[in-house]
């Protein structure tokens, strides 16, 4: 999976859970950070429960740093593994002070100097001043940082992050992401996320799961630049169009043409797909080829008849999702002013003009 050799014995999960119809094969080299992405119910949480030891696989095994902790014959319980979790909800113990929360792990594991360790970890997330507070006196971002300090205070073998930023507001999330990037670098980490920013900031490797199986894996760059599923395409912010390879592009099942210079190894006639950056898609309410709108370079290729499905305004820009004649979705990012002056709304027929120079095509 990795292009570099692992630094030590890998953390390895190769499990089946019958009740959830999940069969996963995931490997994290020691010291690397792996993201698991996929639609809801794809098996991401199951992977975390298996690694943490809260769930036993029906068959297969879990190895932590080369040591088998789950197999049909053995099961090391959660409290004997050195695996900690950070979830959406910080889950601080409400009856303990911030310092006692962080010292909880070192005390439970009988590590010496629990309070000193706790103070060091609190300091590392910038919250030494809040040591004597109670959890209910903290903001969401502060609580999540305390939870991180508490997790790291036991010097874990593996850190599991389950959407740790999802519950934070827009001001607190970047802050926490920076702290996570800083504190997790070099530590073996598995992160479940829906946010592409987390992938870039917090992960080295990605596995994509769907319906309980791994469908794609590789480095973050690889997977996001060459998405193998609509889900990843949306995650990376691009649209994905399936079709058949032509000599100089791709034809969708609906007959639309995407004209692009083909990459090496391109075989016309084979299945292929194109990735389209929403910023390279213009939305016209009339067919520009049929008007006097001469400044638009008009070519039957890269001009896609579609119908608007939804508009998501975000300040000055609006994301338009349009459905092609064959049902495939293409996103466009246009100015909100353009959307307003052209009275764009769901159901309106439009023509999408794609700037072919930014489109990438891949064999399947």
């Amino acid at each position, binding site marked *: 999976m990795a292009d570099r050799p692992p630094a030590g014995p890998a953390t390895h999960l190769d499990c089946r859970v019958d009740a959830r119809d999940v069969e996963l094969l995931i490997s994290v080299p020691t010291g690397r950070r792996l993201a698991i992405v996929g639609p809801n119910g794809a098996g991401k949480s199951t992977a975390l429960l298996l690694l943490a030891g809260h769930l036993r696989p029906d068959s297969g095994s879990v190895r932590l740093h080369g040591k088998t902790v789950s197999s049909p014959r053995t099961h090391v319980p*959660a*409290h004997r593994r050195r*695996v900690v979790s950070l979830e959406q909800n910080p889950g601080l113990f*409400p009856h303990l002070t911030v310092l006692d929360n962080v010292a909880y*792990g070192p005390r439970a*594991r009988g590590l010496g100097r629990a309070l000193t360790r706790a103070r060091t970890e609190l300091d590392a997330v910038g919250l030494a001043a809040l040591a004597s507070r109670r959890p209910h006196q903290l903001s969401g971002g502060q609580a999540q940082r305390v939870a991180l300090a508490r*997790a790291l205070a*036991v010097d874990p073998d593996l850190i599991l992050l389950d959407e740790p930023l999802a519950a934070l507001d827009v001001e607190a999330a970047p802050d926490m992401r920076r702290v996570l990037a800083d504190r997790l670098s070099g530590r073996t980490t598995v992160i479940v996320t829906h946010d592409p920013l987390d992938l870039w900031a917090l992960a080295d490797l990605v596995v994509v799961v769907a319906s309980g199986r791994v469908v794609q894996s590789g480095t973050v760059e690889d997977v996001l630049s060459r998405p193998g599923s609509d889900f990843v395409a949306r995650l990376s912010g691009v649209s994905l169009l399936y079709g058949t390879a032509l000599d100089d592009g791709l034809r969708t099942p609906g007959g639309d043409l995407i004209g692009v210079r083909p990459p090496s190894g391109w075989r016309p006639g084979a299945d292929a797909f194109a990735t389209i950056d929403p910023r390279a898609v213009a939305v016209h309410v009339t067919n520009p080829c049929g008007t006097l709108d001469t400044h638009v370079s008009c070519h039957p290729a890269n001009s896609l008849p579609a119908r608007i499905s939804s508009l998501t305004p975000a300040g000055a820009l609006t994301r338009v999702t349009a459905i092609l004649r064959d049902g495939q979705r293409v996103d466009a990012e246009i100015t909100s002013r353009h959307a307003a002056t052209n009275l764009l709304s769901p159901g309106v027929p439009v023509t999408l003009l794609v700037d072919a120079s930014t489109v990438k095509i891949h064999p399947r």
Partner: protein
Amino acid sequence: MTRPPLPRWLLVLATLAVLLAAVPLLGMAVRLPWADLPLLLSSESAREAALLSLRTCALSTLLCVLVGTPLAVLLSRSHGPLAALARTVTALPMVLPPVVAGLALLVTLGRTGVVGRHLSVLGVEIGFTTAAVVIAQTFVAMPFLVVSLEGALRSVDARLERTAASLGASPSRVLCTVTLPLVLPSLAAGATMSFARALGEFGATLTFAGSLQGTTRTLPLEIYLTREADTDTALALAFLLILSAALLMAASAVVRRAVVRG
């Protein structure tokens, strides 16, 4: 948030409820021999009954907490028909007529009882001893702790317990440092209710333990026995019980507020 007004008849019925609780207490307050109270309460039999009640109730409350807490934890984690059966059986003494509870204990643990017969051979006699008082009190008081604690345990966030385990806490440690501290207010409330119920225990005690001064004659028994011959003493002891109950309720409220405030 303001709500639409309540119907007037509701006020009438609610007032009736308050009167029902308050008037007998007021009637007793009027009738109480306030000036002789210290003298009445310092009589030999009164002192013995009060101390016996205090000792046995403390012991039975301790027993309730000691075995009732594990039972509540177990029940809170159990599902299915077996758990439902266990829940019903352990809660039954709460609604059982006390005299029936006493009878059940007597025919089981008494000298000729199903179990007591064998204990008797070993030289252990339970019936009509202080131990019988404690057993009777524990029997009737335990469900109050178990029921209130089980509800609280069910509402404890499982994620906190999972987090504690991930941080390396053994099952015992999770229970003692996370689960139980989080239900402390309910544990305190449950223990208070158990103590109060044990303090008022009469029927089961009289049936199973009898009424021997200094050994099994607790406050309620003493009140019952003296109420005709020496009404003033009975009233003084009743006042003592009311005062204890009020203090217990106040203490429970203080504990709950202290824990909530953190």
